[in-house]
């Protein structure tokens, strides 16, 4: 029996050591660093001048790169809820001070979403183990922590070895988003789409947003937003609420009653907490060329460069850091 147990322990230890080595190789790959768009969180400056939170709309609308006079961080992620905006906000709070500006992006469904309560959790949840600590993750559990935090090679194992090998062989495609030079006339239809397809897509997306919002009740997302506003106010940090530009085929597809409720909620927040709300919905400057959009409601790289530039220009007298 002793011999058996000893051999099992030795075999287990060697296998574990090998897994550790593979895990170490994996977390150092460019693939892992870029996984789930989390690289930006490993490059957060000591002092943040401006930070935008939000979901994919915000992630696609702001681009702080190339501005030497300030340090901006885009902490928005695809499908990120306000609850996780708050998690990042709290996690990086020590990087903010009185000279900082916090941009809280609010899309039409943001206030009314519901958090996933039971496993299995999707990538939209498990990705936070790559950056955030236990206390910042709702329903943190040990198995997921092992898989996505301590041994990410296990959480993403089917692609891990493949990517380690690819990078060793120099086959890794480092090409990120490439800015296309916008030549020719501005268009009023999305690149590669027909007008009918574009309107149909906009309608479907709006329907999905309305379905995800249920009866537009205030829940934990709303409360998280209020907590962030209050914390900023308490610490004299500038806070601005923003709804970023989208195309008419998207925002006109929402029911009137839905939009009225959304804007009534925003007005109430602004009045009650004395916070600035900038709504770029329908701003004609961002509707002159549809090549600024990847789809009905997400801006392209050229679109986000233009929007960020216009946002700074519009608010240069307001933004503390600028």
């Amino acid at each position, binding site marked *: 029996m002793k011999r*058996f147990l000893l051999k099992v322990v030795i075999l287990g230890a060697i296998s574990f050591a*090998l897994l550790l080595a*593979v895990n170490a190789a994996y977390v150092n790959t460019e693939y892992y660093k870029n996984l789930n768009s989390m690289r930006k969180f490993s490059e957060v400056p000591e002092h943040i001048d401006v930070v935008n939170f939000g979901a994919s709309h915000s992630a696609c609308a702001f681009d702080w790169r190339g501005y030497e006079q300030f340090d901006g961080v885009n902490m928005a992620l695809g499908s990120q809820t306000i609850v996780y905006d708050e998690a990042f906000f709290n996690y990086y709070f020590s990087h903010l001070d009185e000279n900082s500006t916090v941009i809280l992006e609010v899309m039409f469904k943001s206030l009314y979403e519901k958090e996933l309560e039971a496993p299995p959790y999707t990538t939209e949840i498990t990705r936070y183990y790559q950056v955030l600590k236990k206390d910042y993750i709702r329903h943190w559990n040990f198995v997921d922590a092992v898989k996505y935090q301590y041994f990410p*090679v296990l959480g993403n194992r089917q692609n891990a*070895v493949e990517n380690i090998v690819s990078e060793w062989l120099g086959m890794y495609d480092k090409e990120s988003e490439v800015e296309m030079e916008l030549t020719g006339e501005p268009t009023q239809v999305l690149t590669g789409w027909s007008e009918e397809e574009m309107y149909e897509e906009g309608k479907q997306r709006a329907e999905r947003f309305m379905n995800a919002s249920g009866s537009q009740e205030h829940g934990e997302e709303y409360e998280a937003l209020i907590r962030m506003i209050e914390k900023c106010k308490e610490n004299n940090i500038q806070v601005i609420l923003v709804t970023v530009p989208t195309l008419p085929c998207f925002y006109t597809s929402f029911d009137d009653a839905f939009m009225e409720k959304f804007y009534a909620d925003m007005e109430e927040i602004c009045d009650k907490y004395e916070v600035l709300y900038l709504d770029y919905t329908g701003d004609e400057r961002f509707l002159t060329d549809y090549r600024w959009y990847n789809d009905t409601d997400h801006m392209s790289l050229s679109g986000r460069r233009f929007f960020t530039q216009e946002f700074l220009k519009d608010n240069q007298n307001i933004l503390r850091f600028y």
Partner: protein
Amino acid sequence: MTITGFWVNIKKNVEIVNKEEKYMLFNSLQYAFFLPIVFALYWVVPHKRRWFVILLSSYYFYMSWNAKYLLLIMFITGISYAGAILVEREKKIAKKKFWVGGVIVISLALLFVFKYFNFVSGLIVTLLHMASIPASEIVLSLLLPVGISFYTFQAIGYTIDVYRGEIPAERHLGKYAAFVSFFPQLVAGPIERTSNLLPQLKEERFFDYGQATYGLKLMAWGYFKKIVIADTLAAYVDKIYGDMHFFSGFARLAVIFFFSIQIYCDFSGYSDIARGTAKLFGVELMENFKSPYFSTSVREFWRRWHISLSTWFRDYVYIPLGGNRVSRLRNAVNIMITFLLSGLWHGASLTFVAWGGLHGGMQVLEKQVDARKKEKKHKIPYAVRVIINFIIVSALWVFFRAQRFKDAAYMLVYWYQGLNNPVRWVVGGFGNLGIGAMTAVKLLLMILLLAVFDYISLKKDVIACIGKWKLPCRWAVYIGLIVLIFLWAPAESAEFIYFDF
């Protein structure tokens, strides 16, 4: 409600109900803690108390799925235990028959209620509707107890064996309960024979280093088959069967073969883990699979596939029906009855019955062809016969996997779409499935490894052979296998297919 609609609902209900419950699977973290604890307890306590460790751990294992249904397994244990004693006591054949019949009827009635009631109820209502007779369906909202078909059959087999005088009735209720609920094989077999398992649980076992290490190696290979191969292929299979019209002809064809490999690796993987686990406790369970895809006929396939079930049906259904010592026609009927029942055993759906019936039909056909050929040797090379048989078996698996007959027909008929441009058919099909070059190489390596292992297993015990290699070589294999299990497996593992039966 249409017939097809009914089948879909039944299958979906079973799936939903089972997925809502999280229980201790062999591939779960809970089991990684549970097994070493039970192993330690088993070898620490004196021999006389070991049955208690087995019983307690088996009941805990089952309760991790659903505590209430432990009563069911206890009830089956109780009636078969008491029934067998009564059978043994009786001198008159008629009374013996009464008691053994009673145990069988009660056990099968329970199985019927939990597994087949909704199916039969729906079927009757559909038939009445077709005859324009108004009727409303009675649906029992019962959770299908995991492994019910396995332990019920094991208990029935025990009672029949006592009736036949092949084994004495067990007087120790605790030890008998440990036999019925022995956790390694409780929920998906092998369906053990009393003469093999019960004496092992009663006799004093001594720790055997060779047996225990063999058990661990067998478990590792089982895990590789289940977690790496079956679960990887499951992703593609589920995708295509979920929306087959959306995918290309080649993608559908590839998935027909993927499912053959998936179900084999899933089930034989489970059996290997079960056998390996049992070896850790000094218990030998029967071999359930012997390289079935290297069979040259459907008949041979059934001698190599799910052997514990095939032999159960052979001994308790086929032979009592008259077996092959009857006329050719009657023999064909016996085969068909056996395989239709085997199909029904797998699930309450006509697609399962059809799958069983087709396997029975193929065997009847093979018997007729063989009878005409008599002593003539096969002119077709072995490899070609294996491939042809694999194609036949794979095609029949479509009925097993598809939710409805029309889905099965669609899968089997529309695989040729786009074949006029073969290169595009293949390359586009892989793309359609989401299989890139690296993934294709990985899949090929996995399947090749499986094929080589199974081919060598036809003549040799691969694990024993590797065990004779020099230490660095064999340890490299073991460590390599463990690391591959962790690195090649999908992040989320699926439950075992046969748990649903």
